[in-house]
């Protein structure tokens, strides 16, 4: 356990230093108006994204431990060189400049400590956990195979993987617990970007600390950044793009703006949707603030688009070459234009229906749904505050955005930056509403409305000084305490598992589907390659090489083996040594008793392992 913890901490420190090294060049290229906090926030985060992109490119040829260590070693050497050359003069943040506000700082520290302690435990879960299904499955398989390729039985491993590549590197250095602990680093970077954005929006450092504390205690935002989820990293890239893009003037400013747009596109497909609103707000802000005319603004936006496309291109071109379509799995509208491999039209239709119909899904599960009607759109601020479980955002975003956020729009009349921020939040929310209503995808907006809430808090206090300060204080206290309670109570199990071997083992037995079978397969030295028959079994827990005939979404991994009989006849060609057959509840056992060529070697309730004779 101690080894796992030390490995996770060391891996996170190495990635943090490597990100610093990779982002060093950006320090001087950011807009001249940026403070040291702004530079630290953007250069460190940008370095992390570039590190992920570089490892992805190298991983197309070799994703071995040697390749990873050499790449990270070079990036860490760059960071050391920067420190030695520039020293404290450039990098050290002036404590006097930042001015720590005690109460919000304690809240933020509490969230980070809970994340660090809980992150030292192993991520466990079943087929309902996206981290197990693909965020962590991809990196584990890439490391085992020594190359980065989409896992054939899960099309979601072909999603943009800038964050997942870093999980693979963390696993290579620090083992299976490292991605969990690394959330402490990504949350820290997220908070720094929010702080930078808040100060630029007109808040002093004290106000910025409060804005960060509000976001830190939003369970709906927090859970998108831990246990393998990549949404907080994606949100950080979008916010950093907004921070630079709304103040950009020179070509270099637009190059760095485009870089962050590209990193968002390389982290999640939703980055493609966010690109247009980011560009629009940046162009409007440039024209409105009279930093340039509309022609110049359009030219600079073109530079940003070119850079964003170049940064994200490797991921999309890889998909095009290997899977037949840059966006994989493709939306049905693209199906006629590309020769899509491994997935039929029906499988794609099922996948798309799932992606677009979280609303319907929630209606089935929670018996509550908002749909996409106009009244649902108008009620969105109310429902995002009081009924976030409807969007899989249990715990919500606190009260402050609804109670205080609207008042920020009044001082915003005189502040172009706040106007641009509010417009971006509105556009992103509208696009989210008409596409996939999953709470995690709205994290950039949650951060923006928290900043607006603190601005509104200040305004309400100055305009209605009699009762609004105690009322606003109650709103902030409710938001922080409720969020802390939700986050703390949900992570108690993780923290317990970090410190108790017996509890960690008990949790593994309870939460890992078909735990006994995976234990047996992983322990048995004679197991070379496993055929998993049930598409719903999460193969993340299998430490040996494996094969699935069909993936969860109907992916066909062996096109010339159309049914089970054909597959069983080819077992020796496929070098399969063992077969795992389960009764999952979704599918019954698939092998009849005494199947020829197979010997039953392990049996538990609903689980059977056969050896191939």
């Amino acid at each position, binding site marked *: 356990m101690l080894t796992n913890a030390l490995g996770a901490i060391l891996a996170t420190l190495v990635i943090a230093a490597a990100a610093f090294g990779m982002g060093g060049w950006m320090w001087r290229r950011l807009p001249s108006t940026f403070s040291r906090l702004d530079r630290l926030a953007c250069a460190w985060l940008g370095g992390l994204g570039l590190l992920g992109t570089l490892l992805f490119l190298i991983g197309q040829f070799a994703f071995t431990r040697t390749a990873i260590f050499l790449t990270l070693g070079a990036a860490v050497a760059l960071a050391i060189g920067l420190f030695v050359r520039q020293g404290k003069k450039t990098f050290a943040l002036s404590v006097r400049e930042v001015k720590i506000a005690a109460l919000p700082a304690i809240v933020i520290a509490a969230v980070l400590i809970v994340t660090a302690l809980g992150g030292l435990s192993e991520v466990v879960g079943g087929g309902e956990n996206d981290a197990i299904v693909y965020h962590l499955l991809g990196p584990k398989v890439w490391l085992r195979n020594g190359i980065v390729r989409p896992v054939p039985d899960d099309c979601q491993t072909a999603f943009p993987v800038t964050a997942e590549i870093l999980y693979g590197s963390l696993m290579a250095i620090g083992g299976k617990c490292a991605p969990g602990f690394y959330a402490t680093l990504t949350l820290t970077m997220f908070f720094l970007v929010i702080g930078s954005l808040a100060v630029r929006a007109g808040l002093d450092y004290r106000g910025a600390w409060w804005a960060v504390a509000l976001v830190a205690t939003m369970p709906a935002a927090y859970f998108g950044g831990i246990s393998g989820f990549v949404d907080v990293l994606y949100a950080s890239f979008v916010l950093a793009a907004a921070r630079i893009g709304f103040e950009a003037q020179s070509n270099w400013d637009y190059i760095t703006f485009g870089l962050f747009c590209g990193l968002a596109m390389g982290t999640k497909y939703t980055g493609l949707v966010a690109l247009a609103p980011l560009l629009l707000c940046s162009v409007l802000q440039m024209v409105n603030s009279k930093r340039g005319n509309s022609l110049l603004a359009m030219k600079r936006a073109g530079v940003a688009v070119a850079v964003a496309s170049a940064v994200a291109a490797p991921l999309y071109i890889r998909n095009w070459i290997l899977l037949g379509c840059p966006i994989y799995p493709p939306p049905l509208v693209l199906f006629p234009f590309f020769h899509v491999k491994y997935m039929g039209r029906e499988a794609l239709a099922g996948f798309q229906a799932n992606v677009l119909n979280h609303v319907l899904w929630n209606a089935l599960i929670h018996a509550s749904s908002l749909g996409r009607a106009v009244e649902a759109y108008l009620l969105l601020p109310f429902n995002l505050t009081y009924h976030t479980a409807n969007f899989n955002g249990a715990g919500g975003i606190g009260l402050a955005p609804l*109670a205080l956020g609207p008042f920020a729009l009044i001082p915003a009349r005189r502040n172009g930056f706040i106007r641009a921020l509010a417009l971006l939040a509105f556009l992103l929310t509208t696009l989210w509403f008409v596409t996939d209503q999953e709470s995690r995808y709205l994290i950039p907006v949650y951060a923006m409305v928290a900043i607006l809430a603190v601005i509104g808090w200040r305004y309400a206090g100055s305009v209605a000084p009699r009762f609004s300060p105690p009322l606003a204080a109650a709103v902030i206290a409710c938001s922080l305490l409720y969020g802390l309670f939700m986050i703390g109570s949900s992570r108690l199990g993780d923290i317990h598992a970090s410190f108790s071997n017996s509890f960690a083992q008990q949790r593994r037995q309870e939460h890992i589907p078909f735990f006994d079978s995976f234990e047996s397969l992983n322990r048995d030295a004679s197991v070379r390659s496993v055929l998993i028959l049930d598409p719903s079994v999460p193969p993340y827990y299998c430490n040996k090489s494996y094969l699935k005939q069909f993936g969860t979404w109907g992916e066909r991994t062996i096109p010339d083996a159309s049914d089970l009989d054909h597959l069983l006849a080819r077992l020796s060609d496929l070098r399969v040594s063992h077969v795992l057959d389960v009764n999952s509840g979704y599918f019954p056992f698939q092998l009849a008793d005494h199947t020829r060529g197979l010997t039953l070697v392990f049996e538990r309730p609903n689980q059977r392992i056969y050896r191939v004779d």
Partner: protein
Amino acid sequence: MKPTKLYSLNPRAAWLWPLLIELWIGVVLVLFLIIRVLGSNMARHALRALLSY
């Protein structure tokens, strides 16, 4: 043109805007207490236990 402040357009209504702000914050707070605290499963269980006791 000199910019005008929203709450100074009509001096007789100057008290209205602060009151609206306070009302809005108060309503959001009360709704939170009703929906998320008193309406939570934990509160329902506690109330049921209290009534059965």
